């Protein structure tokens, strides 16, 4: 459990608010943050928070969930193409599987991801839902 707590803590910027990087050499937007730009292979250090808007690239519904996620089954995991470019894998929420379509515009929300028993920590992180009204239209 201690390792999990440390991971959750270390990754909170990207998990809670989609904090990624912008490569200072070639301008590539990077998520999750890493030390080397995948496009130009140079080191990156500039933090950049992504808008959270994107569209469903592909998706799959999970009926038999791994440990810690059983309570949410069935749920849909999607690969989201963010408007800044990076692809991100995340759960979809507030939407029925039947209503999901490839290309559907989605936006990031922060939700409960998993809990470890009744006395363990609660992990929060990003999920995506169908774009709600003009939110984020600014």
């Amino acid at each position, binding site marked *: 459990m201690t390792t999990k707590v440390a991971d959750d803590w270390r990754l909170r910027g990207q998990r*809670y*608010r989609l904090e990624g990087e912008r490569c200072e050499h070639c301008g590539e937007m990077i998520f999750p943050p890493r030390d080397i730009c995948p496009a130009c292979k140079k080191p990156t250090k500039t933090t950049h928070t992504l808008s959270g808007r994107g569209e469903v690239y592909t998706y799959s519904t999970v009926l038999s969930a791994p440990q810690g996620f059983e309570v*949410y089954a069935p749920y849909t995991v999607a690969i989201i193409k963010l408007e800044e470019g990076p692809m991100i894998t995340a759960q979809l929420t507030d939407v029925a599987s039947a209503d999901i379509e490839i290309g559907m515009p989605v936006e990031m929300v*922060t939700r*409960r991801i998993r809990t470890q028993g009744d006395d363990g920590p609660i992990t*929060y992180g990003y999920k995506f839902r169908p774009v709600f009204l*003009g*939110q984020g239209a*600014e």
Partner: protein
Amino acid sequence: MKDLKEPRLENSVSDSPIMKPDRPVGIVGYGTYIPMYRLPSTEIARVWSGGGRGPIKEKAVAGLDEDTVTIAIEAARNAVSRAGIEACELRAIWVGSESPPYAVKPSSTLVAEALGATPYLLAADIEFACKAGSEALQSAMGIVGSGMGDYAMAIGADTAQGRPGDVLEYTAASGGTAFIVGPAERAIATCLGSLSYATDTPDFWRRAHQHYPSHGGRFTGEPAYFHHIQSSATALMEGLGMAASDFQYAVLHQPNVKFPARVAKRLGFTQSQIEAGLLSNLIGNTYAGAALTGFSAVLDIAKPGDRILLVSFGSGAGSDAFAWEITGQIDARRDKAPKVQDYINRRQEIDYAIYTRYRGKLMMS
């Protein structure tokens, strides 16, 4: 012998209970979040009293991956969008709730982290039943009004639970609202005055390690809800030299539909003054979020120059009263986030079985 009637020093605090900040303050941003699931009262009546109707039409229910923190985060993001400030300009984030996901560990630090407001801020959770959010609002006005900071955020959010079969189960709902308090010159609504009224009155409580609250039955009415709201609202209006007719809107704590309608009438308000801010028939009682969400709904439609009376109630018991005046800056900011009515319209009905699953009422092991 000392003359007890000697005049007070010129710079002493006045006798008035109205709390006056050193500099004028107001609301610079506001935002609400209401989960999409709705449990109709008829469903609860079907399960627990063989059919019939309940005290409201339906209540908002949080989904499986939602809790007070996630509700607070979305409301807070909406408030930041409307305020047009950077989250790191907030010097305080206070979350008022009676249903925090952790018994020990602040919700406010999670909200602050999600907004990107860390690390230079006050962050704490406030507990005072249904008035925890308005208590946070008074405190945020203190931070800004004293000049300790330019912006402070107050949130009231809950995922309230009633004991299955109890009368509170019909109304105990999920939702929340966040306000960013700032200097009056940037405000969409300036504060004309506020006060707080608190006594020790055991009308409703939840002991440590208990899942569901207990209440004093009829004791929750006259000595608790009505006495505290009438006392704070009357003292504020008298102190400001204002009457019910000076306000376009009144927003009162709304545990159901009946109580706020009755207390409004006693205070001299008409049904048309309270309608816009009375949401309990459609979303239930969101506890610490209730009065604040009603206020948010009024901000969604009010016009510059309109005055609003906001009065909360928290069991235990206390009431915060605020008088607000809308400024010309409202029109440029209100469309920068979804409105309360948008969230009310985003609605998926569920039955009692799904409700027991979503709200963790099933024993899995």
